[in-house]
């Protein structure tokens, strides 16, 4: 995989920094970081599929929602232990996503995006119509078991989860598999021509993405303690995830994390200045301008800035 010492150093520093945070920042900031962590997990999940292979999915909340609802229903309605419910939720997400979305991978480009959007809308309708006694219907459910109490514990859990997901994804992408996936994103027909099965590759990317989405969704619902279809199967959620990845830098691991943190903190820190609806307007406006200025993302900006610095000193 070509791991160098500075890889270990960088990850090590990152982890140490995270663990030290509760001493340095306020509880309020910790809460914001928790949300940012979960968004980062969802963003990495999206990036694994859409960032790498170029199959833009507009219905990612579909996968997250399956994970969240499965775990919520199992723990709340059937009294299943949460240690069992979460793994089951992940498996169900992967299965459900596979059965439903795999045929769609035959389709390219914009059509794929539309199918995924259609699936998300479908889930939104189904969750309210099919067995609302289990799903809580339109109003959703409250009083779902939480795994942690308090800002600090929630922070540690979400951070550990995020770091594990990030490192796992990072390692995966450094294998030959990862390279092949990026190749698919760049030129699928060339990859076909070289004898590799793009279908198998896409399936792997998809399963990895679904795994993370289901995992993230299940832990997320056990952090919130509540679930509502309007919060999950919403085009605004799609927007947040995609923008987080693209502003941060697609096809990387650190990019989605940067983007997630940037967006979450931007929205939250505008709160004291712009209490009401202006906040969303400015937040959206900044996101739009930033994206149009640099569609490749912040990570790319940092990289090229660093390269320029190195280049100018040599």
């Amino acid at each position, binding site marked *: 995989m070509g791991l160098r010492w500075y890889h270990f150093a960088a990850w090590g520093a990152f982890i140490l920094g995270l663990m030290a945070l509760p001493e340095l920042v306020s509880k309020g900031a910790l809460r914001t970081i928790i949300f940012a962590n979960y968004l980062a997990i969802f963003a990495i999940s999206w990036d694994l599929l859409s960032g790498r292979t170029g199959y833009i999915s507009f219905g990612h909340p579909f996968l997250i929602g399956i994970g969240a609802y499965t775990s919520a229903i199992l723990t709340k309605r059937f009294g299943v232990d949460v240690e069992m419910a979460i793994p089951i939720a992940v498996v169900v997400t992967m299965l459900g996503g596979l059965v439903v979305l795999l045929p769609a991978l035959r389709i390219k480009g914009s059509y794929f995006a539309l199918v995924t959007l259609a699936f998300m809308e479908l889930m939104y309708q189904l969750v309210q119509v099919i067995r*609302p006694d289990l799903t809580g*219907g*339109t109003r959703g459910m409250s009083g779902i078991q939480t795994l942690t109490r308090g800002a600090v514990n929630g922070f540690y859990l979400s951070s550990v989860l995020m770091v594990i997901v990030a490192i796992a994804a990072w390692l995966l992408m450094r294998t030959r598999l990862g390279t092949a996936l990026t190749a698919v994103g760049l030129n699928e027909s060339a990859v076909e021509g070289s004898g590799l099965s793009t279908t198998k590759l896409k399936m792997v990317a998809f399963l990895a993405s679904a795994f993370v989405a289901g995992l993230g969704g299940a832990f997320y619902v056990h952090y919130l303690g*509540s679930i509502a279809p309007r919060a999950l199967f919403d085009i605004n959620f799609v927007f947040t995830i995609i923008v987080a990845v693209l502003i941060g830098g697609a096809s990387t691991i650190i990019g989605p994390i940067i983007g997630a943190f940037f967006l979450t903190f931007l929205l*939250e820190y505008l*709160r004291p200045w712009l*209490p009401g609806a202006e906040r969303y307007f400015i937040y959206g406006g900044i996101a739009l301008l930033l994206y149009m200025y640099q569609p490749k993302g912040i990570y790319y900006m940092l990289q090229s800035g660093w390269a320029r610095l190195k280049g100018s000193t040599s």
Partner: protein
Amino acid sequence: MKLVKGMGVGLLSALMATTALAEIKVGFIGSLSSDTGLSTLRGAEMAIEELNAQGGVMGEKITLVTADTGEDVTEGVKAYEYLAETEEVDFIISGSIDDVSLGWLPRMQEFQIPTLDTWTSYIGIIDMVIEDPDTMAPYFMNIASDEALATLYINFGADVLKAKMGWDSVVVLAEDTAFGGAITGLVTDALAPVAGIEVKDVITYDVNTVDFGPIFSKAQASGADFIYQVSSVNSQVMSSQYVKLQVPMAMTGVNVSALGMEYWEDTGGAGGGISTLSPVPSVGFELDPVSAKFVEDYQAKYTSRPSIPHFNGFNAYHGLKQAMAAAAEAGGFKDVKAWNAAMLKQDLKLEKDGKLWLRYGFWQHGEVEPVTGRTYPQNARFDLSAPYDDAQPSMVVIQWKEDGTVGVVYPFEYANTEFELPSWIKK
């Protein structure tokens, strides 16, 4: 020795200075861009102003901070966390809608901050209070729960729809949501035995329905005497199409968008003939002197919509004062059990012409309501049987006339107009 004394005095005065600057922080959680949220916010603002003018509470001034939810569930959770962890408020007043309240409820249970909910009426939350009184101790809901609203509506069916209009069959048109399902269940289970009205059919529709034509045709085909509407989401779409299509069937029920004075302006006048149940005090409700003064002061202070606070504004105004009084008795908001006990005892009776008109009080634990036979701890007091001398009725039925005026048609003790059919229905 003198130095130590001097330092002691200095320290003491510094200490006293800081406690003099201490304040009570109230947090508002709700949408800052909706009439609902603004009603609660302004009611709270006015209560705080009056209390501060009288010297504050326990010698401390009250300050207000806001946290916007944009009526989004996830933002609601973030807003509650913001109020609790960053602003460190002592008390929270909520103008959130049902699913947003359900979203931040786990946080309230964790932080144990006394919270007053002024709009959400979901009976499931009161069930949570009964099941788990310890973690739910900080939560008070000062609007009658939705089940109480629906129960009294059955009486409207018996006293007006059956007795006066002579109808004995109904078709229910309910939205496909948890709210729709709950109210429909209540109506179908109770309407026949209590009011003697037969439910011919229950038609459930998708909230995003664009065209209600086919649905109204289905309703007409059922052969019922009238339509019972159950809609909280996009309710204006159904009712405005009802008016525009001039459906030849009477319709009444629950139409959440018709609860504010801006309804007429928002519908461009296509809202005449619509009747709905409404929490108290509704639009078109005759007010007692205290509430009337509140509205007068409100209109002097605020020039943007809503022109008259929705019922939750009144709830916020009286409720916040009660919460402060309870805090004064309990020595603050920190001891949640003590505050809870003091808040339960709060009881404000408002009279009009020597008769009990409105009562802002709470049901106690274990106190059984005679008509429904169940308890509603920490829920606003209401009365379900005439002549309503224990508290106000849980709801009134209002009707918008085709000329833009609105009045109360039921219960008769509070009515100021008659229930009528829209002009295009020939009977």
